């Protein structure tokens, strides 16, 4: 399954790129001109999703191969048929990352309380993924002790620095190791947003800090209600078909 996922059919890829390209250009321009991701905001009424910037043109995740905190392969297709909340951080981070993980746990609890972790119509699960931007210090073993502490369903991911780069960059996730400290104690500046990945493995929305778990879970529900059908069109069978087309090499 994961092997197959790596070979993207060129035609399908071009098709996706043609749609995604304007979005990516806008996104990058937004970052370069320092106006942030809000410039690609799409939703006409800003009030529709107070905590989220929803992308009109969702950005497909690139092909990548990472390792989860149990040592298993985690690839692009691990996002298939799931709504995923994703955060990039590192375990030597005192303030922002623990806060983010606590907030994500708040979102998760809000959904779980209402029996809402699984989208009902198409039975789409929700997963939460923490990707390290510090693979040098964050091995899968480190992540295994760290990430589940906040919620034992959360998944920690690490891997080759180039792989993490190749996942982060197209999504507009920036990070930079600060140079002033010695080689042991360094800190990393990093994007603090939560990313929402749709069941077709595309970046669909961005939750910028400061994060309000209650508002995020409400908006997540609304986004899911609005877009799950787009990803699934006529139900389960169709969803399988769409994903199959997307990864035609399978």
């Amino acid at each position, binding site marked *: 399954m994961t092997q197959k996922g790596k070979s993207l059919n060129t035609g399908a890829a071009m098709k996706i790129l043609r749609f995604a390209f304007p979005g990516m250009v806008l996104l990058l321009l937004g970052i370069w001109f320092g106006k942030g991701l809000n410039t690609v905001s799409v939703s006409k009424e800003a009030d529709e999703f107070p905590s989220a910037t929803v992308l009109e043109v969702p950005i497909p995740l690139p092909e990548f191969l990472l390792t989860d905190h149990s040592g298993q392969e985690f690839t692009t297709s691990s996002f298939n048929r799931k709504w995923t909340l994703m955060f990039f951080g590192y375990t030597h981070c*005192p303030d922002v990352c623990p806060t983010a993980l606590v907030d994500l746990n708040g979102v998760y609890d809000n959904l779980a309380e209402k029996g809402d972790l699984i989208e009902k119509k198409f039975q789409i699960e929700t997963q939460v993924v923490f990707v390290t931007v510090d693979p040098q210090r964050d091995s899968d073993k480190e992540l295994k002790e760290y990430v589940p*502490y906040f919620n034992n369903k959360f998944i920690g991911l690490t891997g080759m620095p180039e792989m993490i780069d190749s996942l982060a960059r197209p999504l507009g996730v920036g990070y930079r190791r600060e140079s002033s400290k010695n080689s042991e104690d360094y800190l990393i500046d990093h994007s603090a947003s939560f990313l929402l990945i749709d069941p077709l493995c595309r970046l669909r929305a961005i939750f910028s800090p400061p994060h309000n778990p209650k508002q995020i879970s409400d908006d997540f529900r609304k986004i899911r209600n609005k877009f799950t059908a787009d990803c699934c069109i006529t139900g389960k069978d169709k969803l399988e078909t769409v994903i199959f087309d997307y990864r035609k090499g399978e």
Partner: protein
Amino acid sequence: MRKIISVVYIVALTALCSSVFASDSMTVHNAWIRSAPPNAKVLAAYMTIKNASTETRALTAVSSALFNKVEIHRTEMHEGMAKMIPQKELIIHAGESVSLETGGYHLMLMDPASVPKEGEQVDMDLRFDDGLILNIKVPVRSGSVEGDKTDNHHH
């Protein structure tokens, strides 16, 4: 100096029950350390420090036997990027208070001898520019939404 310390210590001890630590000029409220995974290499402490004196004071250093090093930091968000800025000192103007809270000022606690568990108390010395040393005991608790988002904001 020793006298000041012992006075401060006694005041701090008597104030323990209400978790307010005070000299005649400086008081610390709502101090807490966010509980962290057993392999955490850094933790953070938050609190509100009030300067009741008529002079501007600065928190210049913090130490704790449990941690190899403690630094004063400030998280800054810029275009969605989080950056940690080490602070040489933390200025507290006369009659004002400064809150250390998630996403802002915090004490970065590095290299714990062992990661303290929820419910434990951690000893810390806060040093101010006038020589005052405030010994405080900081409880460890989870950074749940109810805890850190509502408690510390308006002091």
